[in-house]
């Protein structure tokens, strides 16, 4: 493990050059992300921030904001990106792997347990009724999230037309996402480029 971490630093010099990054042991890293994974009901992000910035002080508040901004630009779940990024900063590739496993292992176990319970009792009328209600509420969570995302974005003809195009292609035409991105991204880039040069 140690050897691998050193190898990786050679390949990735920016990691070791960063000043003031605490070196954290793999067991500590695993334990910290394990607890985050278990506590993250209804969104893991606030818990991961509290753990990294307030409790363990592995990142300062501004470092966290920077990491969050970066993870939002990258593909993939934000929380996973932050976890991998922090794990890698603390202890190289093994750190990234351990932090990821720590974050995911309990949620996976819990969710599989819940789904086994559902498979066993899902046919019971009260369970079925409860899940009908929960599903409608879960849709409400996503509606709220969409509104929060859309409100500050949809302020220009450019953003409104591009978002509407993607919405129609996905929701009404049912096109595969890959096609939608391949068709819409060049248009979006061109339009953004022109808008910037005006």
């Amino acid at each position: 493990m140690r050897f691998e971490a050193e190898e990786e630093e050679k390949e990735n010099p920016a990691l070791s050059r960063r000043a003031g990054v605490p070196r954290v042991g793999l067991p500590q890293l695993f334990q910290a992300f394990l607890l985050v994974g278990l506590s993250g009901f209804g969104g893991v992000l606030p818990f991961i921030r509290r753990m990294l910035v307030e409790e363990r002080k592995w990142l300062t508040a501004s470092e966290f904001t920077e990491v969050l901004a970066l993870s939002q630009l990258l593909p993939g779940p934000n929380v996973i990106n932050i976890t991998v990024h922090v794990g890698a900063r603390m202890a190289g590739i093994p750190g990234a792997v351990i932090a990821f496993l720590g974050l995911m292992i309990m949620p996976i176990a819990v969710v599989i347990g819940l789904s086994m319970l559902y498979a066993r009792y899902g046919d019971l009328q009260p369970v079925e009724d409860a899940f009908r209600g929960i599903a409608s509420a879960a849709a409400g969570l996503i509606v709220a999230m969409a509104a929060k995302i859309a409100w500050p974005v949809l302020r220009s003809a450019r953003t409104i037309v591009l978002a509407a195009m993607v919405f129609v292609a996905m929701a009404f035409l049912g096109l595969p996402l890959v096609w939608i991105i391949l068709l819409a991204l060049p248009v979006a880039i061109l339009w953004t480029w022109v808008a910037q040069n005006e």
Partner: protein
Amino acid sequence: MNSSSSALFDFTIHLLLLSLLAIGGINPILPELHRFVVSEHSLLSNEQFVTLFALAQAAPGPNVIFVTLIGWQVYGLVGALVSTAAICGPATVIAYIATGLSERWQSRRWFIILRRSLVPLTTGLMIASAWLLCIAANSSLASYAVTGIVGVLVLATRINPLWLLATAGFAGIIGLV
């Protein structure tokens, strides 16, 4: 078994691709998952899809475990692990590489344009997700009302979403939804 393992292979390849397109996490790609899993390959029924989504929302941890659940439901433990690895894999490799890059590339012009181009696309996808779930999860006026009330409460208050899910579950049991 053979057809099932080749279907798992197709699903995995698709998830590897989606991992790179899932900008802003799993929520914007929900309609694509629904299209692939329900409409195109009939791996799950619409009701199963919605129920698994509700389960994933009610469980702790990152919401990418919805994909874990789909894998579990269709292909068992192997499916759960493989699909989790596939949806996280490419994105985590990129996240790792980005750790090593200097922050200067974030202020490069091409990068700013790319980022500003992606924002409206992700927004359109997110609205499509909300639209899809409204249709897929709701059948009665009362169920649409639950979606609407929960949406407003989340936007207007700091209430823990888990309470809203639990209350809606209770409303279902006593026959309100």
